């Protein structure tokens, strides 16, 4: 199992390198997270693997190889599905834990 995970990681890293060389977004070839944000009030995250914590002030989103944490006031998830999620509210901090 561990061997398989290691192999998948290597493939992802290799694909990432190729994508960087070709000047195309890494998220389009590997399943890494892609975040777009409008000011500090609307965030869209594509390529998540589910949420681990969700309150009015904090949201923790699991992504491939990292956890994205968003802090703020009055956070609310507008919608969520397999591909992505949309978050609104006053976002004060975004943190990546690799």
């Amino acid at each position, binding site marked *: 199992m561990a061997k398989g995970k290691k192999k998948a990681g290597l493939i992802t890293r290799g694909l990432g390198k190729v994508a960087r060389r070709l000047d195309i977004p890494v998220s389009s070839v590997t399943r890494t997270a892609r975040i777009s944000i409008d000011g500090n009030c609307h965030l869209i995250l594509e390529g998540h693997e*589910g*949420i*681990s*914590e*969700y309150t009015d002030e904090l949201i923790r989103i699991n992504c491939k190889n990292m956890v994205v944490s968003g802090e703020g006031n009055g956070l*609310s*998830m*507008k919608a*969520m599905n397999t591909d992505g999620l949309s978050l609104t509210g006053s976002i004060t901090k975004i943190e990546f834990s690799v």
Partner: protein
Amino acid sequence: MLLKLINFLRGNVRVEMKGDYTERLINMCAFNGIEFWDIKRTGNNVIEVTMRVDGFRRIRKYAKKTMTRVKIRKKAGVPFLVHRYRWRYALWGGAVAAVLLLLYLTSFIWTIEIVGCTYTTPAQIMKALNGLGLKTGVRKNKIIASELKNNMLSEVDMLSWIAINIKGTHAEVVVREREETPYMIPRGEPCDIVAEKTGVISKMNVKEGKALFKPGQTVLRGDILVTGVLDSETAGIRRVHSLAEVQARTWYKLYGRAPEKYIRKKYTGNKKKRLALIFGTTRVNLYLNSSIPFDFCDKMIEKEKIIINKSMYLPVSVVTETYTEYIPEKVRSVSGQISTEAKRTLLRRLSRIIQGGSVKTSSCKVDAKNGAVVVTLNAECLEEIALERGITEVP
């Protein structure tokens, strides 16, 4: 907006999820294709989401796995409304009857509009249309537009083209009329050029024929300017079709008359409105006293047809009558004001007379005569005076 409407039509429920693993349940829903939105934490271990009814049915399985209690907080949408009112037979009957009535009423023509009349009157066209079967209240499927068009063209001689557009319950009839062609002497036929008006010739350009006048000479109306009869020693007398452009200075004197005193309306600000409904041809007044409310008043009638969705005209019109009270006042005409107003009117009349010509100079004079103001406009114009006429005499 559209999404909200679709959600309302499909029906949705606000669900409360209570438990220690609510986030896990949300993840399971997202990864198993259950659609949900508006996710809000309302308590320590309580989350509220909105989802479709079929989504709620599928969620129970995952709720059990994550040991979360799910409860419906609110139901909204058409399926729930239908369920709530399912025993109200009169309501459903009324709705069906209304739809059927609407469908039945929309199979008739309720309004006819005639567009493009210049020489003929809309009443004349309407009379012909009525005679051929297109009238208010006729069934739409009885009208064959192509047949009606052909019949109309043979019925009304003045028409050169007609289109009948039926939009919903409204019939738009667009007409184009025949224009009378001015009489012209055929190109090969000999003719003279005569003066159409009296004036002093300023410019002359003869292309065919022999000029009898020169620029600077005065001509009277009817004088032959260019003759089509040419005489030469070698060829003898021959007749040609004269062609020439003759521009002349002409003078006009136009009069306008206005009373020295006139009645001006001084509005008091009092207004009265009355409403009435017209069903087809029957009028129903929505007021009791039908006498005119003021001694002196302006009456404005506005008739508005009830239209649904631009093209669906209902056979009901709302008539609004507005009476505005005024006090008549006798006022003396102000000379300056009359002068400018009259000059403008007289110049407009002059431009109709000279047709394409230009006004070089003009002056206006105001005189008071027998209790009236007489305005005289003197104008010098530059216009085309050439007119073709058949050869009458040999010079």
